């Protein structure tokens, strides 16, 4: 960059954003009108997450390799790429179970193990982003806001403990491995949600600064995925979850927003 003017974002990231909204609208329309009956809904609800997570992993791998120097930033984006690769494998495994084998996987399945393998690098990535920001020496805003996030997460934890954890733990029909894997989803998701909210606070400090743009999409994606996962855990346990539920849209759109964030990050760096 030879002058001090910052170029505006161009077409690539915006195109990904348009694609994301198009997929979102298609997803909503498909679920609303239920084209092709139950089998078509089963196929769509299984394949939408595969496609959306593929978008996420593809764009994250692209940005991870685009960053040449080994530093905190590359490590964080690479961890995200690894995490979403496992989540793509998770969604693909579900697709094989449901569409090729015609069975509903029993917890813990291979898909659950992929999910667990994915959440760990994602947790590390978000922690690196927050740690990296903390190292910048930039202001972090009011501690009270962070305290309220922790408080809200604790309240959510207590509610989930009584509504979900206790019944699952005392259910004689679920074995130990089943209990562990059923509960790991909401437990890990709560932590991801907390980190995502911390990043929301940080991002809000950046205001309209263009450095905030990738993070805005990233945290919105994570909030959607985590909230969707937590609600799904409860609905699934109470037997209220149905294939083709609007809840699926939270994951699908969350994955797409993660992809958009990676596109914006790449474009942001190309400006310099």
């Amino acid at each position, binding site marked *: *960059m030879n002058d*001090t003017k*910052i170029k505006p974002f161009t077409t690539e990231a915006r195109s990904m954003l348009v694609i994301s909204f198009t997929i979102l609208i298609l997803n909503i329309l498909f679920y609303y009108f239920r084209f092709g009956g139950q089998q078509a809904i089963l196929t769509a609800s299984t394949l939408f997450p595969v496609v959306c997570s593929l978008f996420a992993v593809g764009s994250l791998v692209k940005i991870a390799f685009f*960053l*040449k*120097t080994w*530093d*905190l*930033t*590359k490590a*964080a984006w690479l961890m995200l790429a690894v995490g979403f690769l496992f989540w793509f494998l998770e969604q693909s495994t579900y697709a094989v179970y449901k569409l090729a084998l015609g069975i509903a996987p029993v917890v813990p399945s291979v898909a659950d193990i992929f999910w667990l393998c994915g959440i760990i690098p994602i947790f590390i990535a978000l922690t690196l*982003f927050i740690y*990296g*920001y903390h*190292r*910048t*020496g*930039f*202001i972090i805003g009011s501690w009270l806001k962070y305290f309220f996030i922790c408080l809200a997460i604790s309240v959510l934890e207590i509610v989930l403990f009584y509504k979900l954890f206790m019944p699952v733990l005392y259910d004689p029909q679920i074995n130990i491995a089943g209990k562990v894997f059923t509960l790991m989803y909401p437990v890990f998701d709560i932590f991801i949600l907390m980190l995502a909210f911390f990043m929301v606070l940080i991002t809000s*400090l*950046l*205001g*309209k*600064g*263009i*450095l*905030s743009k990738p*993070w805005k999409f990233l945290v919105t994606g994570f909030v959607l995925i985590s909230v969707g996962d937590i609600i799904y855990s409860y609905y699934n346990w109470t037997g209220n979850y149905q294939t083709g539920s609007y809840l699926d849209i939270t994951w699908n759109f969350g994955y797409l927003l993660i992809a958009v964030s990676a596109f914006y990050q790449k474009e*942001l*760096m190309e400006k*310099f």
Partner: protein
Amino acid sequence: MTKNIIAVKIESYLMPLIGELLTAGTLKVQCEKIGTTVDKLNAMDLQNLAPRLEQALVIFLGGDRARKVSRQILTMSF
């Protein structure tokens, strides 16, 4: 708002990147850390200030791009 010409240049460069709030806060804090103030910032101080701003931008831009921003800031004394 400072009237120091170098500080104004840096502010107008950083503001579109990190927003108004962080620009003002960061410049003030980093100037204090190198033993000066925003109003007294001079060309010599940029040698100490630019690496600090580079370090602050690494998490958003990666090391290479943050270094480019740092070099850009170094030229602001001219």
